[in-house]
């Protein structure tokens, strides 16, 4: 009982700290945290389809890109306000997921993964080619927001923070109800789930749409935050890699795993980046390899039992040839 209590207490303390943070942290750290929140949302929403439902999408960056581009196009070409752009982007992503879910969600395991990878590449190509609307590989610039830089950064900080809280709440709510159980049953054994009365196609679509929605939201906010986007930047497979890695680091199929993973990863990144600038990206790869070999259940699973070296080595013993 006390363990759970500690969990909630530390959560509340953490939230309070994060809400007060812009007051005393430097602009640099505010930016870092904003980025952490953004990736936390993407990891958490990736986790809904991949961790809970068992369908690992390797192309979720496509929603980030679509959200970003929709926001930009609506703001620049159609002179819509920011909020309209962001919401429209998220809705577009949801529809994209629903429509493409029809063919793609029928595939299983890594076939699904490959297809989503292809989807991201194909969409990136499409967006690049529709030059008249998207300005192609040149990218789109958004007007810089006038005003005090500190206040603006704080605004985006809270925007991302807010979206992160909503995503966490949604995931938590979902995990305790029929929806969450349906997802988990599908991941465990889709055929058994079907005969037990679960309409897998329907639930998988919901999972992917939810992850599309949240990812699209932060994509839109990101666009306005950085004021410039281009296809290579926002449809980047590296974004999907990060979502994946953070989820695995923290623990797939758990509510807080991806969040924990996002924080750990970004802070590790900052540490490494500031000292070994060039090594940064290769380090990602090494980290993925290490996580898969030693702790495929992520940090959350490790925390459930006792942290031990022998546990990590046991994984290798089980899985080696």
């Amino acid at each position: 009982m006390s363990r759970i209590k500690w969990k909630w207490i530390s959560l509340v303390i953490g939230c309070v700290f994060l809400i007060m943070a812009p007051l005393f942290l430097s602009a640099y750290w505010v930016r870092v945290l904003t980025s952490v929140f953004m990736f936390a949302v993407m990891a958490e929403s990736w986790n809904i389809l991949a961790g809970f439902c068992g369908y690992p999408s390797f192309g979720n960056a496509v929603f980030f890109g679509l959200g970003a581009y929709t926001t930009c196009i609506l703001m620049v070409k159609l002179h819509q306000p920011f909020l309209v752009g962001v919401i429209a982007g998220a809705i577009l992503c949801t529809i994209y997921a629903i429509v493409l879910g029809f063919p793609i969600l029928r595939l299983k395991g890594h076939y699904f993964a490959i297809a989503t990878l292809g989807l991201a590449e194909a969409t990136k190509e499409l967006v690049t080619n529709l030059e008249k609307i998207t300005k192609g590989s040149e990218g789109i610039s958004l007007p810089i927001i006038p005003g005090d830089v500190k206040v603006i950064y704080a605004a985006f900080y809270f925007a991302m923070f807010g979206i992160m809280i909503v995503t966490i709440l949604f995931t938590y709510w979902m995990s305790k109800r029929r929806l969450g159980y349906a997802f988990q049953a599908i991941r465990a054994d889709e055929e058994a789930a079907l005969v037990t009365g679960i309409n897998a196609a329907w639930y998988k679509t919901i999972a992917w749409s939810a992850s599309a929605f949240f990812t699209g939201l932060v994509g839109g906010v990101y666009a306005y935050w950085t004021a410039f986007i281009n296809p290579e930047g926002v449809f980047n497979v590296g974004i999907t890699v990060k979502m994946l890695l953070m989820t695995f680091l923290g623990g797939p199929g758990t509510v807080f795993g991806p969040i924990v993973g996002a924080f750990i990863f970004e802070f590790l990144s900052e540490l490494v980046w500031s000292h070994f600038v060039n090594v940064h990206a290769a380090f990602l790869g090494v980290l993925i390899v290490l996580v898969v070999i030693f702790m495929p259940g992520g940090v959350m699973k490790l925390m459930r039992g006792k942290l031990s070296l022998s546990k990590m080595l046991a994984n290798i013993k089980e899985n080696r040839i």
Partner: protein
Amino acid sequence: MVILQNIVNGLLLGGLYAGVALGFSLVWGVMNVINLAHGAFIMIGAYVTFWIYYFFKIDPFITIPFSMAFTFLLGYLVQKYIINLVVRAQVFMVFILTFGIEIFLMNLSNLICTADFRSVTPSYSGAGINLGGILVPYIRLAICFIALFLTYLLNLFLNKTKTGNAIKATSLDKEAAQLVGVHIGKIYTITFALSAAVAGAAGSLIAIIVAISPYMGGVYTFKAALIACLGGLGSIPGVIAGGLVVGMAETMGSQFISPGYKEFIGFVLLVFILIFRPEGIMGKKFFAVIKH
């Protein structure tokens, strides 16, 4: 006339693509590993060729054995000391592992070689045979021939040597192969090393006609996946058929639809195949069973 030229181009490209996909299909068929790092080995082979050409001015075709040796060794080490540690885990975990290896190799290469595009341009670059109005560049012809020759060699190896037969046996039934004394771990290592070697060769060939960069691998991995699925996993004739189809589709698509939609066409094709005929063109059943 234009059509004929395109068909020829498509076929020549297809031969190369068969070489690109060969190792990938083999590894998937034998070990049920979808090697996302495949493109990285292609990239490494390309760079080996580039650097040898750059420093020693040796004809790029001659560098192929060197790049193959290098990637063979690298593949051997990767399989033995990394992938073999997790290969019995869920297929998806191994998938992510190879993803991590790809990221690492790509970025390491970026560190060492920098992100500038490099080219290998031998003196005979533009020349070719003229067959009644259709231009067949020497280079493309040689590349296609070499790729198909390597495919033939691999096929010979698989069918006529003891190790090759052991590999085939492993792909058909791992447990049965073990029962007759096949050491699965060693077979996996050899298979992956061979796959990497062929990928390296493909990379060398690619370096001769295309500008290379550390991040070029991803596109080829996807193409390899597409061809492997099209042709049926682990099936060498399937890889050739798949390669030709993709080569043709790309060339025709570029000419008659638009050059900018190559990935799109590939993607649509892939989804189609996976949904409607996952056994591929050749219709062989998957050796690989998808276990979650």
